[in-house]
């Protein structure tokens, strides 16, 4: 027995030694190869790096990943996507590694990446750093650090029009009375981006269905399938007859499909999973921004510190309307309102369409320049409407308007 064991051990040691030798020589040839490759690549090619919070299993990141691939393939540039980068020091490390790797422009997709991108931007002045959803580029004063967002509130408003049409349909059918036209909204955090989103959705619905009210609940997470599902169920139990959401899982849409309650979705179509209840979905298409920023960087032109994509740039898009669930004439109504938004005859946050504590707004200071005390610093009411995403790309509308009832709040954590 002992002999057998000794034999086995010696055999394994020999194998281990030979294996070590083998891999070592492999490594060196590998290193040589990459070394000879590298200078040629960087000399001729333009390279783009992307930092993503999660991978393609998250609808939020998938939306960015698809846009990144689309833009880079269209422009014919080499690119590298790094997924699952947490919102901490790893983000700086990855950004720096991409810069070391010869990337000329680097994008990050999550709000919490911002400070680490700024840190990297300070260290690599010749590399462009672009951060989606951030708020600090216009005050940071770095020529190579940029923010971007889209006027998604316009998309939400259009989706709201579709929701209002559905409510009118339900009232006309005698399914509900005018007073029972209550919508529900599952939000992630009580954060300006979410507040701006549900308010514009509500105003869109109100523009066609004046008696509408809305309950809002918050999950305290951008992705929590169970909490989103429970939130939607709670709203349905509270008498909400139509649900929309601003969070990244399938929780709310699937809860709606189970309960047979119409749903206005976000981040892309959920029609495949919810064929009977999905009405329409709005989303941000990041490809136009990626194309713009990469092209500018390739030509050595300056990139805007704050870039806001619009309906016109193709950054704010709506999916096709699901005719099974939506009211008749929804697509036509959306197209008509869209035209008005684009030519400026209609504004989403028109002060004549909503009140705050029973009063019409004539002045409102928003916290546009990010600071620890949330100091309201910029007058946002211009020509009778709240000018969203004008003073910086990320949304800053955070007023609680009448008609919307917050069941709870969640400021983060």
């Amino acid at each position, binding site marked *: *027995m002992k002999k057998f064991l000794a034999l086995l*051990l010696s055999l*394994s*040691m020999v*194998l*281990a030694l030979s*294996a070590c030798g083998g*891999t070592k020589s*492999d*490594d060196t040839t*590998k290193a040589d190869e990459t070394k000879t490759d590298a200078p040629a690549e960087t000399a001729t090619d333009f390279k783009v790096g992307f930092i993503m919070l999660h*991978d393609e*299993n998250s609808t939020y990141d998938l939306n960015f990943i698809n846009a990144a691939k689309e833009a880079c393939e269209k422009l014919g540039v080499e690119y*590298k*996507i*790094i*997924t*699952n980068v*947490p*919102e*901490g*020091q790893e983000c700086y*490390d990855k950004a*720096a*590694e991409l810069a*070391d790797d010869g990337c000329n422009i680097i994008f990050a997709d999550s*709000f*919490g990446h*911002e*400070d*680490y991108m*700024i*840190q990297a931007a300070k260290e690599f002045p010749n590399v462009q750093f672009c951060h989606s959803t951030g*708020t600090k580029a216009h005050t940071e004063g770095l020529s190579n650090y940029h923010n971007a967002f889209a006027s998604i509130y316009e998309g939400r408003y259009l989706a709201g029009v579709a929701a209002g049409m559905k409510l009118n349909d339900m009232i006309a059918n005698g399914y509900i009375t005018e007073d029972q036209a209550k919508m529900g909204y599952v939000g992630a*955090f*009580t*954060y*300006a981006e*979410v*507040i701006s989103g549900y308010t514009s959705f509500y105003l869109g619905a109100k523009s066609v269905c004046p008696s509408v009210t809305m309950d809002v609940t918050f999950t*305290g997470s951008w992705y929590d399938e169970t909490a989103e599902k429970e939130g939607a169920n709670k709203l349905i139990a509270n008498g909400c007859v139509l649900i929309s959401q601003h969070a990244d899982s399938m929780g709310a849409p699937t809860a709606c499909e189970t309960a047979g309650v119409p749903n206005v979705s976000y981040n892309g179509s959920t029609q495949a999973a919810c064929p009977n209840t999905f009405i329409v979905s709005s989303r941000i298409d990041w490809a136009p921004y990626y194309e713009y920023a990469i092209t500018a960087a390739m030509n050595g032109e300056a990139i805007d510190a704050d870039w806001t994509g619009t309906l016109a740039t193709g950054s704010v898009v709506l999916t096709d309307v699901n005719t099974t669930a939506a009211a008749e004439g929804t697509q036509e109504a959306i197209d008509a309102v869209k035209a008005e938004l684009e030519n400026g005859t209609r504004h989403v946050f028109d002060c004549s369409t909503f009140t705050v504590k029973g009063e019409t707004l004539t002045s409102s200071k928003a*916290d546009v320049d*990010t*600071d*620890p005390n*949330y100091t309201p610093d910029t007058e946002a009411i211009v020509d009778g409407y709240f000018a969203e995403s004008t003073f910086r790309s990320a949304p800053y509308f*955070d007023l609680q308007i009448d008609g919307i009832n917050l069941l709870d709040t969640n*400021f*983060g*954590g």
Partner: protein
Amino acid sequence: MNKKQSLFHIAKRDTLPWYKSFAIRGCAILLALVVCAVVTMLLTGENPVNIFATIFKGAFGSARKSWVTFQNLAVLLGISLAVTPAFKMRFWNIGAEGQVLIGCLATAACMICLADKLPNAVLILVSLAAALAAGALWGFLPAFFKAKWNTNETLFTLMMNYIATQLAAFFIIVWEVPKGAGKIGIINQGTEAGWLPVVGGQKYLLVILVVAVLTVFMYIYLNYSKHGYEIAVVGESQRTASYAGIKVERVIVRTMVLSGAVCGLMGLLLTAGTDHTLTTTIVGGRGFTAVMVSWMAKFNPIIMIFTSLLLVVLGRGASEISSTFGLNQSFSDILTGIILFFIIGSEFFITYQVSLRKSGKKEA
């Protein structure tokens, strides 16, 4: 009654000479790599040599990657060193995650609240004291209850993790910027107040140096000090320790305070040294991974350098694999799982001898 006998006979071994036990471990790692290679080929069709080369490249591919790897190594090693005295004492402390996090929270509190009130050097000293005290408190509480009322330390330390997480979540809301974002971001990014100084022009060198010193200290403390001896005796048998005149309760409390304080120090290094922020996930499960590092190294601080290096390299290589080959991050988790399975499994063959029964009847 003639009991049915299994084909294998398992017996506890005498202590193996070191070269034999190392041969078994080497063999296990080799087998693990072979299994990884087969799994890789079957599941993805990629060349396994390329995968291993990519793991290596991900960890040491450039100077920066190597620095980050060593920084990660230092953090994991530091937390592992912190939990080791308690484990050697057979005190099941699984609260390192919370002890580090509370150190991070204490540091962040000092950095945010005292930044414009104190000169930088004083601020760092205050942060250090606060982090050590907070970590020590998180270690003291379960130890005190264990010593006084014999409460279950596993549950107690586990619960303390949740308290630390919730406290951190609460203060993140208090300090978040902008409102509703749920993020603190980099603390004092403009002024760098309360940031630990950069040594030798390398961001991560300080952390590495501190942990290097800590490793030597812990090695000496455990093996050559009276305290270390007491810990070992209490770990072997509390009754023997009492009989030998060791005050068991005092040793338990003292050791856990030390464990907690070292965790607090790691929290300071994370928040003031590298990340400069506070999130509920800043420790990232390393408080639990440290348990494995410590046990795999049999509580030997020097061996721990290698066990934590192995885990860190695998983790760093993992993300490189997922971006290079377009594989999901989960794939590298599978590889890490296979390798750990074999390494931990090999300990069985080091402790026990397995032999084939020649004939059931004869040995009965």
